[in-house]
């Protein structure tokens, strides 16, 4: 299914092979400087007229040595760097890393901290999904309107982030064994306000676009990802669920307090761009439910496990893999601690957008060049995470 591009297949465009009018194929390098590659990402497309006959994703323009840096740094020192992986979802990145370290060090997280984490993660999901849809529609050519509506809502969530953690995007909020700052009642009220207000935004958003014939025609049956391919390629997150793979770590692992919360996992059947769009809308609606439950149930208590030291934090030798259901898919951190235990011996990130990106060619070939950017938009990548 997934063939390496060194394979000769995509480029052997011998005349007469496909039977249509022989046109000269055009090799177009979309990116690294392009309005809709969502960063410095390049797609080497071979076009036959407007149709894509081969596509090679080229990554690494934003490589920042994340893993090696972390291996030369104290455990805590990597926490702000995880913010910069997927800069839209720093909260969930923090959580995944904290979860991995907590597993490795055997730290118990207080209940309140778990609830705070759930609240933050679901807010992040709302933020990410609304913006992804906005970006995707931007790629579709809806000239920024949906994107700016999404940004308007994102602003409220970011304001809450800033009030809580001090920064809008680079939150650096989670700590091993809890969170850095406790949520005040005022913060909780803001979160509640967001949770009540968001459905209204979603309704407006859907009215703007879900039934829009142009959108339907552009997205349905475009970039289909079959279920088998999704499973084989290790796709996770909304993309896998849009293809009908019932895989949500919140249900599978029940990490944090997700076991106590009630929510459903929407599934698509076809796995095209429209499914990926609509699954995200439905997931946002579920996230709001989770938020409301978490805000209702959040207990009083400490926000961080008191025994965890900030400095000279050491972990006994061993390895551990912590993963969460990030907005983009399964975000995992694999950590190995060795003698001394002051820094990770090995630090590996399983970035969802990178792995989801690997099947870009399989989804794009045969479609028009205009679809490529939409399919890329529906994959939902952040180059900070892809290239690390």
């Amino acid at each position, binding site marked *: 299914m997934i063939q390496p591009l060194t394979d000769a297949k995509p480029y052997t465009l011998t*005349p*007469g092979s496909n039977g249509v*009018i022989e046109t000269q194929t055009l090799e177009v390098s979309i990116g690294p400087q392009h309005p809709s590659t969502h960063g410095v990402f390049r797609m080497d497309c071979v076009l036959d007229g407007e149709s894509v006959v081969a596509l090679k994703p080229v990554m690494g323009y934003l490589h920042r040595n994340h893993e090696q840096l972390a291996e030369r740094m104290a455990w805590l020192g990597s926490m702000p760097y995880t913010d910069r992986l997927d800069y839209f979802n720093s909260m969930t990145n923090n959580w995944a890393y904290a979860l991995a370290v907590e597993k490795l060090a055997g730290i118990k997280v207080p209940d309140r901290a778990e609830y705070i984490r759930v609240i933050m993660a679901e807010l992040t999901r709302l933020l990410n999904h609304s913006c992804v849809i906005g970006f995707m529609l931007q790629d579709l050519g809806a000239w920024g309107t949906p994107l700016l509506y999404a940004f308007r809502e994102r602003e409220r969530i970011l304001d809450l982030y800033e009030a809580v953690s001090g920064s809008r995007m680079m939150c650096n909020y989670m700590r091993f064994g809890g969170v850095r700052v406790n949520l005040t009642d005022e913060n909780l009220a803001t979160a509640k306000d967001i949770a009540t207000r968001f459905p209204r935004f979603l309704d407006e958003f859907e009215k703007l676009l879900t039934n829009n014939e142009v959108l339907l025609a552009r997205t349905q049956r475009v970039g289909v990802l079959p279920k088998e391919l999704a499973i084989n390629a290790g796709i996770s997150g909304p993309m896998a669920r849009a293809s009908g793979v019932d895989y949500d770590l919140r249900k599978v692992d029940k990490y944090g307090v997700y076991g106590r919360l009630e929510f459903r996992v929407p599934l698509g059947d076809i796995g095209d761009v429209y499914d990926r769009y609509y699954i995200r809308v439905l997931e946002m609606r579920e996230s709001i439910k989770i938020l409301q439950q978490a805000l209702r149930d959040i207990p009083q208590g400490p926000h961080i496990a008191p025994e965890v030291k900030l400095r000279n934090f050491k972990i006994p030798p061993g390895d551990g893999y912590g993963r969460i259901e990030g907005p983009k898919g399964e975000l995992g951190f694999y950590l190995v601690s060795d003698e001394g235990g002051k820094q990770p011996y090995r630090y590996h990130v399983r970035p969802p957008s990178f792995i989801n990106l690997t099947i870009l060619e399989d989804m794009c070939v045969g479609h028009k060049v205009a679809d490529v950017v939409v399919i890329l938009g529906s994959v939902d990548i952040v180059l900070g995470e892809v290239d690390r």
Partner: protein
Amino acid sequence: MNVSLDHYLMLSAFLFAIGLCGALSRKNAIIVLMGIEIMFNAGILNFVAFWHYKYFAVLTAQMFAIFAISIAAAESAIGLALVIAVYRHYQSIDVDEMRSLKG
């Protein structure tokens, strides 16, 4: 000096010769087609010139011009389709290389 029919006839004869030259001497099938278009236009110009200078009252010349333009359009469509078909077959649109009648 007033512009007379003479001038137009000379002009169109000249254009016709240019078109013929292009159609006969260039290798590229598309240029050959373009030469034919030039010849067509020269002919149509003749019609219109005669209409203007002599048969002003009747529309026959204009009708001829209209029909000629239509036919030229049809001809170029077919011609270019043929060029594309030939190109697909020979990977070339050089008229010199189209030697066989067999498809």
